[in-house]
């Protein structure tokens, strides 16, 4: 099947195996290896990308189901010549060690900052919750980091959220 994707602003049209996940398409067909494969089952978040601006696990989406949609990967987060504020903050707060979960953490954080509404730890469901450290931890718990860089991750996101 032939599909067209808008990947980091560029339109890409290519034939795909209907079994191919969006993640494998990015990594193996388009050479965008920034998105990582940690589990291939939607359990670790390392493959998180933005699909039409919303964070998704690229390993759980078939590429053919993304025909016509816009994908942003970690390679597309930075603007022209400048890092995204989250990327700067992750470096400054030592929010990673091995770096393998980092692209997913960054895309997940970028998507999360654009989200509205309460989470499981929000006390007042009627009010728009502020992004406290507790809210950030809850909303980022779909992205595992085995190195245990969570303290830096929360500090980095909190700095950008302010």
């Amino acid at each position, binding site marked *: 099947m032939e599909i067209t994707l808008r990947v980091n602003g560029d339109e890409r049209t290519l034939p795909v195996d209907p079994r191919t996940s969006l993640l494998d398409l990015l990594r193996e067909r388009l050479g965008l290896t920034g998105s990582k494969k940690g589990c291939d089952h939607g359990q670790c978040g390392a493959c998180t990308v933005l699909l039409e601006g919303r964070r998704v696990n690229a390993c759980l989406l078939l590429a053919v189901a993304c025909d016509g949609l816009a994908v942003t990967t970690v390679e597309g987060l930075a603007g022209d010549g400048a890092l995204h504020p989250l990327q700067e903050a992750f470096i400054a707060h030592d929010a990673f060690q091995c*770096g393998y979960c980092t692209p997913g953490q960054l895309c997940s954080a970028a998507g999360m900052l654009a989200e509205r509404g309460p989470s499981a730890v929000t006390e007042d469901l009627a009010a728009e919750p502020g992004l406290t450290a507790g809210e950030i931890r809850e909303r980022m718990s779909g992205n595992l980091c085995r190195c245990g860089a969570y303290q830096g991750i929360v500090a980095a996101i909190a700095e950008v959220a302010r």
Partner: protein
Amino acid sequence: MNRVEGHDKVTGRARYAVEYPAGDVAYACPVQSEIAKGRVTAIDSADAAAMPGVLAVLSSDDPPDLAEDADPELRLFRGREVAYRGQFVAAVVADTYENARAAARAVRVTYAAEEHDVLLRADHPELYRPDKVNPGFPADTEKGDVAAGIAGAAVTVDVTYRTPVLHNNPMEPHAALAAWDGGDLTVHDSTQGAAADRDTIARTLGLPPGRVRVVSRHVGGGFGSKGTTRPHAILAALAARAAGRPVKVALTRQQLFDVTGYRTPTIQRLRLGCDAGGRLTAIEHEVREQSSTLVEFAEQAAVPARTMYATPALRTAHRLVRLDVATPSWMRAPGECPGMYALESAMDELAAAAGIDPVELRVLNEPDAEPAGGLPFSSRNLVACLREGARRFGWDRRDPAPGVRREGRWLVGTGVAASTYPAKRRPSQATATAEDGKFVVRIAAADIGTGARTALTAIAAATLGVPAARVRVELGDSDLPAAPLAGGSMGLASWGSAVVRACEELLRDGRHGTADTTAEIQAGGGYATHAFGAQFAEVRVDPATGETRVPRLLGVFAVGRVIDPDLARSQFVGGMTMGLGMALMEESVTDEEFGGFTNHDLAQYHVPACADVPDVRAYWIDEDDPHLNPMGAKGIGEIGIVGTAAAIGNAVHHATGLRVRDLPITPAKLLAGF
């Protein structure tokens, strides 16, 4: 200093093993044994071979030429015997990942299964004493009269602690990209040591080491599981030769549970005695653990008891049983991590039984020299760590009574444990060269997330007296000067020594310096060299649900000179976070009926998530130790996990009055006690 590869890691430019471009690349997927013990009787690959894109099927129907004396875990498809469920019995190579995976499922393997034995038991009739325990310690030691020490004690504890199978689970699954150029092989592998991996791959394939190159510039974590060559690397090499093309093997998360090592389960009996004043009269630490029928790996869980406390009578012992399981291997702080969990939990029980504060009990039993061997310590600041940690944590406000503090629905408690890890180094080579206004350091070291590239940059800059921006460190390539792997918290001490010496020679020479620290390291000795630390935990337990939360974890460490505070803090905090997982959630459940494990993914093997660790802090004391290495530094990669699980378990007891002696401390185990 920010990580020198930080920009590459946040932009996705940092390439991990199977992310290097390779023309005309193919993909190999393994077929795994469905039985735990027996023989493969037939492999029907006709349907698989006829599927779209399939290039080759590998199996014992056509055994590859591999060295007879190679690690049995790496001698793929040489025999028909099955030693554990999940062992590779065949593999399919195809033009795409999708085609390879589908064809691997179409390979039909039939077996003659035999009755298997996969469960470690304290009374297993085939337990035996290994000749040595990892990496070369005696299995047993005995000093003084333990029976007399226990008999004469005012207070004793006799307790058995159990730890489950644990899996390292680095975020990057083990993966390799292999490519042949004539008789020369290049493997981009996810490994903790390019040189050691190169040597093992070459030996297994029967090649001279010079024909093999391993590249591993970025590694997505390892925690020990990438310290030894794993079957995926050999499979990639065999598949690439069979297909005549470069081949990628990327293990699935599920396959990691089968073929990349794990921490052995342990059953540990501790007998401790002390006099009325709290001075130890005896320590006995007996460990039972497992290995495979293929390879003997004996984790040194009772070894830290030989270092920790002053006692007139000390006995340590390891017993092993060989089961129909995969071979256990290194996982962050092998030995110290499970062993100190049991020892430090038992010390807490002794403190409670003796009515002595657990910090004070440890201070009371501080030794003058290493208890088992008698060597003087090059430096030992456990007491300073305990005191500083107690001050920062607010320990002096603690009421020792268990199970009496309530805040809302929570029972609240605090706990402490000590930690230790050896400070050693191995011989290493390095070069330093002045090139185009820069200073380039070359060494086959590994940065698996530890910050080694950054720390070595700082070490070189300090030795040369130049800004770090003028230094470039090249590592992660077996063609660079030979260096030991990242393991045993020895990486920075080993590599840093060689980098300092190479830079010193560069300063003398003006252009180039070469170093080999073999002689320097052989000349050392005469001291017991260990890092020490103390962890403090606050826990909250909901008695209605058994849920345990850890609002605070605090560690203080004595590790010689800290090279880079930011990197060190991340290492300590990361280790403590993994220790929290060990305490409360991590467990691979052995499948008694079929072998292997019943849980083998991250939905069922729980590792700490962001919401689990609200406040983890690490500090260190100033420690000046001239007996270690040119940097005066002790390794820091492993001590953070040591002690953490005991501190949390001790805090759970303080909160609830319940002693769970069987990790992990799950809601079900707590509810059974309430």
